[in-house]
């Protein structure tokens, strides 16, 4: 097995939208590839491949030695993505007859080769590969590998291939490591079940659907429990004799980023909650804005100062395991009672309970939601009292009911090409509002539009460009976009003095002349003082 096979798998996963199609590709991979390569492939898909990476600059130098600078610049401008440009431009006439490297060989060589040797080694590999495999190699060694399959889907493919329950693989997952020789041996009936040694295991989270008006009409108040929707990140806390871990919603281990939470996890159980940063307020601890949490999330090392200025806190809302007892098949009301009793008994530091909101009718709840904006809360969570804890996004038992977004009609001012799959499209937009008779930019958005709207915007921008600054195009001030956003804040860093939170393009207002777009004063009035 070699890199070209892996490249073909990656390519097809990326282009295949359907889950069943992806699973078929994965099954075939596990069935056909030998050890240890199939395990390394699995690690790459599961995001558990740690390897020494090379800097993109190294590859830039390699390609510069081999191409004309003008042709490189024209090509890069056309393709938009550096790794892909290099993969496509790598001279084919130097194709060596050397066999393409195996995945295992690449990983091992990167680990052991002296740094000074890397350019020569990488160039020799690239000479032995076709363009698809070159792209996979470049993405792999620069750490930019994007995979069209989640860790969970990779494991699901493995489970289907081996004809075992996905849960069984999750249970042993933390007792195995790349290239997973013991795991494959067990699944093929040629070895014992790997022993997870009681290591903490991530349990997939239950997720909520956004509540639409039609769904709301069907809700019957007595069936439902309501909680505030907190503006932090969803976490799972797993602790027991085998150790403690803090997981993000996708199962990423973020224990090291929040050591103070880990230290407070002295219990035995699995809990679900919201990670927040707290700061002192007039009435004790207050939830800090999301940007404070962002400060913590972005840092690799945790300083004493950060622990003091941005202390983390978990607001608990569910209990999945109490000791060894699995509570997930119990209804929400019962789990909630167990959670409250457990919390009263354990009283873990840096944690509290997310309160239940009392309400008698759905109308009353709607009024409460209408007030969330004033209270700086993101909205409400609705959970059926009888809902068991089911992994994934099951429609019906849980809803998230966000506060209504705000919106303004803004004028498109600049556009830039996107990244990854959007890199041939002008998909990042800067828009502005009128101040006097000048337009001032108020923000950028790169989501919210449909594919058809993206195609329209891309063409419109190309047809209405008035100036270019590197990758940015300035356009005729003639297209109005309805921009939706969650909140607006004063910001000295922006020319307009205002910054938007979660802006997205809600609609293209081709019917509206630019002169009738909103004025900056309109936006300023929406800022919460």
């Amino acid at each position, binding site marked *: 097995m070699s890199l070209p096979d892996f490249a*073909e798998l990656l*390519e*097809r996963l990326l*282009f*295949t*939208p359907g889950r069943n*199609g992806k699973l*078929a*590709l994965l099954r*075939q991979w596990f069935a056909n590839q030998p050890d240890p390569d199939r395990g390394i492939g699995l690690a790459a898909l599961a995001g558990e491949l740690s390897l020494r990476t090379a800097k993109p600059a190294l590859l830039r130098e390699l390609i510069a030695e081999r*191409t*004309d600078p*003008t*042709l490189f610049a*024209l*090509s890069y401008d*056309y*393709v*938009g*993505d550096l790794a*892909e*440009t290099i993969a*496509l*431009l790598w001279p*084919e*006439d130097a194709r060596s007859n050397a066999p393409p490297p195996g995945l295992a060989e690449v990983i091992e060589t990167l680990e052991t080769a002296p740094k000074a040797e890397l350019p020569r080694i990488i160039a020799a590999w690239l000479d032995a590969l*076709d*363009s698809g495999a070159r*792209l996979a190699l470049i993405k792999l060694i620069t750490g930019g590998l994007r995979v069209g399959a989640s860790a969970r889907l990779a494991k699901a493919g493995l489970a289907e291939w081996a004809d075992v329950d996905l849960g069984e693989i999750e249970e042993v997952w933390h007792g195995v490591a790349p290239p997973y020789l013991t795991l494959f041996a067990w699944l093929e009936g040629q070895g014992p079940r790997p022993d997870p040694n009681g290591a903490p295991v991530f349990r997939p989270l239950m997720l909520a659907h956004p509540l639409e008006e039609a769904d709301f009409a069907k809700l019957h108040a007595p069936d439902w429990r309501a909680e505030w929707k907190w503006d932090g990140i969803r976490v799972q806390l797993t602790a027991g004799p085998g150790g403690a871990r803090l997981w993000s919603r996708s199962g990423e281990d973020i224990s090291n980023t929040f050591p103070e939470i880990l230290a407070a996890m002295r219990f035995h159980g699995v809990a679900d909650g919201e990670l927040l940063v707290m700061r002192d307020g007039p009435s004790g601890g207050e939830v800090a804005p999301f940007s404070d949490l962002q400060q913590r999330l972005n840092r690799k090392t945790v300083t004493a100062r950060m622990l003091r200025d941005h202390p983390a806190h978990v607001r608990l809302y569910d209990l999945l395991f109490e000791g060894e007892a699995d509570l997930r098949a119990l209804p929400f009301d019962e789990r909630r009672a167990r959670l409250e009793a457990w919390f009263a008994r354990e009283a873990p530091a840096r944690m509290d309970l997310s309160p239940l909101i009392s309400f008698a009718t759905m109308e009353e709840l709607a009024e409460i939601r209408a007030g969330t904006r004033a209270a700086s809360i993101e909205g409400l969570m609705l959970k059926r009292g009888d809902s068991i804890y089911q992994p994934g996004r099951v429609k019906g038992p849980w809803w998230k009911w966000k506060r209504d977004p705000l919106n303004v009609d803004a004028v498109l001012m600049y556009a830039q090409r996107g990244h*990854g*799959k*959007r*890199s*041939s499209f002008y998909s990042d937009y800067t828009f502005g509002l009128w101040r006097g008779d000048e337009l001032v930019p108020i923000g950028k958005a790169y989501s919210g539009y449909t594919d058809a709207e993206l195609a329209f915007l891309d063409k419109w921008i190309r047809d209405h460009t008035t100036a270019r600054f590197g990758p940015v195009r300035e356009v005729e001030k003639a297209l109005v976009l309805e921009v939706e956003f969650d909140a607006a804040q004063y910001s000295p860093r922006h020319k307009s003095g205002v910054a938007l939170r979660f802006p997205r393009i809600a609609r293209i207002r081709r019917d509206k002349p630019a002169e009738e777009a909103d004025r900056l004063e309109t936006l300023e009035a929406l800022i919460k003082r």
Partner: protein
Amino acid sequence: MPPHPETWLRVTPDGLFCEPGGFFVDPVRPVERAVITHGHSDHARPGHAHVLATKETLAIMRARMGEDRAGATQQAHPYGETLTINGVKLWLRPAGHVLGSAQVCLEWQGARAVISGDYKRRHDATCAPFEPERCDVFVTEATFALPVFTHPPAGQEIARLLRSVALFPERTHVIGCYALGKAQRLISLLREAGWDQPIPLHGALMKLCTLYEELGVQLGPLTQATVAGKERLAGAIVLAPPSAIADRWARRLAEPIPCLASGWMRVRQRARQGGVELPMVISDHADWPELLATCTEVEAQEVWVTHGREEALIHALAQRGIRGRALHLIGRGEGEEE
């Protein structure tokens, strides 16, 4: 000193005009006398009074435009035979692009220009292979004139398709391709790879496939995709115009996997537009190495670039001591190209 071709071969709003010969090559508007390189709609337009082309190109024009619009008088001219029009010598050489495609070779008072139309240098069993002709000025397209466009061997792309068919035997692979040239070449490549099953076609592809067969190109068993039932289409490779593969038409297929055969599929970002799940880099045009090799092989001192990415090509030609000139021909490279 022979007269430089720029003194007798002019770019006009109607297209390239040979002044002493009094005829246009691939004019975009109806003219009195037209020489047509090949049947694609950006080269062959309806309504000319007199049309000269290969007999295959004339047949393709009649099939696409109708007898009455494909030229009031049609003059079939075989490859390699010289004809003199008002002192201008004219002959045709195969361009290897689609059936009947020709390079128009012109010589006047000892100066020679070759207008290659669209061309490719790869093997294609459905048309005569490109024949290089030495000349003073070579007029070339530049559709894929960027070094990122190096088309892989077509057989490799077909092999990937067949691996996918083996992996998803209960689904239909539907390949988006244009009706003239690409469809027939794909069928021929599939036959070369041993695919001998009937190939169901979208209605829009049928007419030209039938014409190719009448003109002596064997394509094997073909059926109408619309007639076959869903279960018959499981495991089939179906051909359709690109606009149909992800459209309502495709609902009749069994869990279709949309594939697209085009040189543009080389760049992943482009391939990801339009819901393609299996991009196939198969092109009717010369790729970058072939463009450069051809411009060098014909030993022209000057290369005129009709349409495409002329900037990169002219830059690379200059490094090889060849003068490049962008013609900016209107209306070229639009419509069904690639």
